[in-house]
């Protein structure tokens, strides 16, 4: 039962990324244009319009105040996949650990029951 349980969960875990990402139309994925200022506003796209450093070397941030995070260059997909993967890994480990404890306990119960049974049989005879 435990093996089936773990196998099912593992299959689900392995299938999830495939099912999740395979069907996404490109326009559904977050593009920089969807979540960030347009490419034209970024310094890389318009080098001539790039803000110049002041006397102390600080460069003014031309981005809108609510758009400062999205240009960090950190891709979101690994974070989402990492979070989801961690959850299912944690559940799998929990199931495997619980199954292992149950199996150990089962063995000990069987052993004890056998000893009690043989002791009772010996006392009767």
């Amino acid at each position, binding site marked *: 039962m435990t093996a089936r*349980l773990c196998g*099912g969960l593992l299959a689900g875990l392995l299938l999830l990324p495939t099912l*999740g990402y395979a069907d996404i139309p490109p326009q559904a994925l977050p593009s920089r244009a*969807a979540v960030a200022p347009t490419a034209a506003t970024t310094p890389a796209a318009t080098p001539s319009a790039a803000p110049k450093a002041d006397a102390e070397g600080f460069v003014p941030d031309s981005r809108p105040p609510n758009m400062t995070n999205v240009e960090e260059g*950190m891709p979101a997909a690994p974070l*989402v996949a990492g979070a989801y993967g961690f959850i299912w890994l*944690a559940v799998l480990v929990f199931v495997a650990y619980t199954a292992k404890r149950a199996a150990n*306990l089962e063995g000990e*119960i069987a052993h004890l029951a056998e000893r*009690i049974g043989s002791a009772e049989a010996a006392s009767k005879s």
Partner: protein
Amino acid sequence: MTPKEASRPTLSITMWAMLALSIAGMLIAPQLIMRAPTEPTMGFVQRIFYFHVPCAWLAMLGAFVAGIGSAVYLFKGSERAEQIAAAAAELTVLFGLCVIVSGPLWARKAWGVFWQWDVRLTTTALLWIIFVAYLFARRYGGPGGRRLSAGLALFGAADVPMIYISVSIWRTIHPKTSVVPSLDPGMRPAFWLSMLTFTVLFVVLMQMRLRLEQARARYSSLYLQAQDAGLIDD
């Protein structure tokens, strides 16, 4: 039925059906999550919401169940309630860990940092620590360990309403509870399916864990029987 069969921590047909439902939900939910509209401010990373919130809900549910079970054990002496509390406490640690890991991954992208000592985050971390302490106290606390851990569970359960209302009372960077009722209609199927899937999984894991507790009780009774028969030295 042999003693071995009686104690075997297997799942019933209903539980197997619930497990199948949960696995089906796991397969369908990611597709709905990927097709849900992208939140304009946070972008793609907001999709962590669809499993971060269910994990948080289950961590709080587990803490609440553990608190009630512990109260019944402390005031009525019910062993069954204590077993339920222990099973729920372990699931609180499991789902709490998932919240504590998935939240910072989302925060890193949305807030620019993994962690803030925000009241919602801090009370959630506190809940997790209380239930880790519960498990340690129950496991290593000696003869009074179960009563000590039951007392800890009451503190943990008292933290649950604090977590829930924290975003409404204090100024916080964490989204408010009004996010779920005001969810975009396109996001609702993915969110509610995810909630259902995780909740069904919680019930299955709870049942599995509870059967282990029952097997432990059976082992303890056999152990005492063997001691009485002189098969085991004191």
